[in-house]
């Protein structure tokens, strides 16, 4: 851990909100932007089930679940600059914990979900401690190896049905507010609540001093060390938090489909999560969610037309990387900026 005993040697800078002398304009602008997008997005997501059919409600539950997963992945990829190929295994872990606790052991689903979240946080933090001391390809391979290990365990475990997995997993019991989550529309709103909570927590994390350290590590870890940061616990905790979100996504996923099998833990899903992040835009907070939406919807559309949807996906990915700097979010923000600038006609002061 960091050498904290010497902190006394300089007068320190504590929370003092009243004296914002040199205003942090960038942060204020970013906050305004976040709130605008969040509120518009939330309104759309709330209105959605009232205007689209059952099939799409279910598809949007899927998008939100993947949205949680890929936002967590982006804490590593976009914010910290670490490429993990092991995140599907944390999603799988969360899924299996909920399945085992709720279906085999008979615990209430809400408790099983909490268990999923906690266990995936702890295990991801542990894996993080072991892997974040490495970088680049080595890090990628270690996370891949861990993922494959979890996958193999899931395949070989008898009491969870081995390769066949488990079925008839219950959804959350919302009887206490008179709702039945087995209805897809109700379940969608439950997923939406989980999504909003997850995004709020993640937002807090990336805005915190801790989150700024992650960005510093991405930009130049050497200088962070020279400044006095012991970087590896930060990276390990980032890994833990992102694994926790994957675990929550997994717990929702198994309720969504009422079943789980080891396929959810394959590295292909980890790779797809990375694709979603990059297509959506890793430099933006909501970008990965856009990527998840694009991915799920396009996959749905393409797979109706052709078996080879992954081929088209590969093509789209290459096009996005080559021509859309910053992914869909980058494109949208440039578009919005141009649009707003024309409308306000220089009314907004640009720094």
């Amino acid at each position, binding site marked *: 851990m960091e050498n904290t005993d010497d902190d006394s040697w300089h007068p320190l800078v504590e*929370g003092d909100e009243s004296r*914002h002398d*040199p205003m942090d304009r*960038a942060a204020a602008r970013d906050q305004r932007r976040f709130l605008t997008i969040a509120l518009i997005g939330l309104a759309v997501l709330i209105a959605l089930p009232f205007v689209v059919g059952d099939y799409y409600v279910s598809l949007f539950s899927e998008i939100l679940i993947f949205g949680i997963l890929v936002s967590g992945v982006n804490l590593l990829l976009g914010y910290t600059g670490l490429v993990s190929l092991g995140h599907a295994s944390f999603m799988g872990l969360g899924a299996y914990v909920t399945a085992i606790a709720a279906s085999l052991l008979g615990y209430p689903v809400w408790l099983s979900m909490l268990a999923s979240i906690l266990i995936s946080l702890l295990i991801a933090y542990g894996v993080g401690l072991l892997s974040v001391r490495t970088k680049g390809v080595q890090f990628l391979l270690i996370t891949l190896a861990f993922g494959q290990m979890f996958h193999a365990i899931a395949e070989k475990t008898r009491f969870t049905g081995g390769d066949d997995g488990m079925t008839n997993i219950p959804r959350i019991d919302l009887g206490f507010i008179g709702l039945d989550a087995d209805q897809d529309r109700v379940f969608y709103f439950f997923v939406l609540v989980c999504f909003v909570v997850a995004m709020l927590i993640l937002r807090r994390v990336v805005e915190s*001093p801790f989150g*700024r350290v992650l960005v510093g590590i991405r930009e130049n870890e050497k200088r962070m060390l020279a400044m006095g940061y012991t970087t590896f616990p930060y990276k390990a905790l980032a890994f833990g938090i992102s694994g926790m979100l994957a675990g929550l996504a997994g717990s929702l996923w198994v309720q969504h489909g009422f079943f789980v099998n080891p396929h959810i833990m394959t590295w292909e899903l980890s790779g797809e999560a990375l694709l979603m992040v990059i297509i959506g835009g890793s430099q933006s907070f909501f970008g990965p969610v856009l990527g998840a939406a694009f991915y799920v919807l396009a996959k749905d559309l393409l797979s109706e037309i052709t078996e080879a949807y992954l081929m088209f996906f590969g093509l789209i990915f290459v096009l996005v990387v080559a021509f859309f700097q910053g992914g869909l979010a980058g494109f949208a923000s440039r578009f919005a900026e141009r649009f707003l600038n024309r409308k306000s006609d220089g009314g907004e002061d640009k720094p």
Partner: protein
Amino acid sequence: MSQLSVSDISKSFGALKVIDKFDLDLAVGERHAVIGPNGAGKTTLFNMISGWIPPDTGRIEVEGLDITGRSPQAVTQAGLARSFQKNTLFDGLTVAESLRLAVQAHSPVRFNFLQPARKFGGLQQRAHEIARQMELETVFDRDVNTLSYGQKRQLEVGIALACSPKILLLDEPAAGTSPAERATLVRLLTTLPDDVTLLLVEHDMDVVFGVCERITVLNYGRVVASGTPDEIRRDPEVRAAYLGESAGHAGEAGKA
């Protein structure tokens, strides 16, 4: 007690002896320069003192605390901050964000992961103060990769300064800067708080003579001379080894 004490450190890369039995003692508040031609071992010396390279032999102490072989982050937390000869900056961040990170590194809030960083106005304020000192105020909110080379050098120093070190190690801070920027640097270094100890590697003799009260001359990893600026200027061995024919006004000496 001396602020920084380096005793008998040596370093070889393979057969090449880069630093040979180097000794240095800095009193609190001392302004000390290490000069010498390229390849003399100055940067290697800094790397050893700041924890990036372990010395083969010898001992390094900060205020009596043995830091030999400790990690760079531990050395910095012990109160010694450095800048780099080759810019080591955050290209994708703004000047403000870069400086804030440095300030935050020495604040307990660095571990906080659930409160918005902007609530800690002190970080921003201190960062702004450093930017003003380094004359980076006008580019405070600009991305680092849009700065001029000279401004990047100023930021390189500013980041080290923002760590509020007791001992500051600067590796050629004036390299590639304009005369005006050099003047700013000299002004800044001469107005550092009295209790900050400075170890400076610099080829620009106006900066060295303008800031430092003691100078150590290094050549091929060995100390050739050590003394006040006047003594160094007069030392025949130094003139021969380093200052060359333009002794006394050797601003360009040693530049690659």
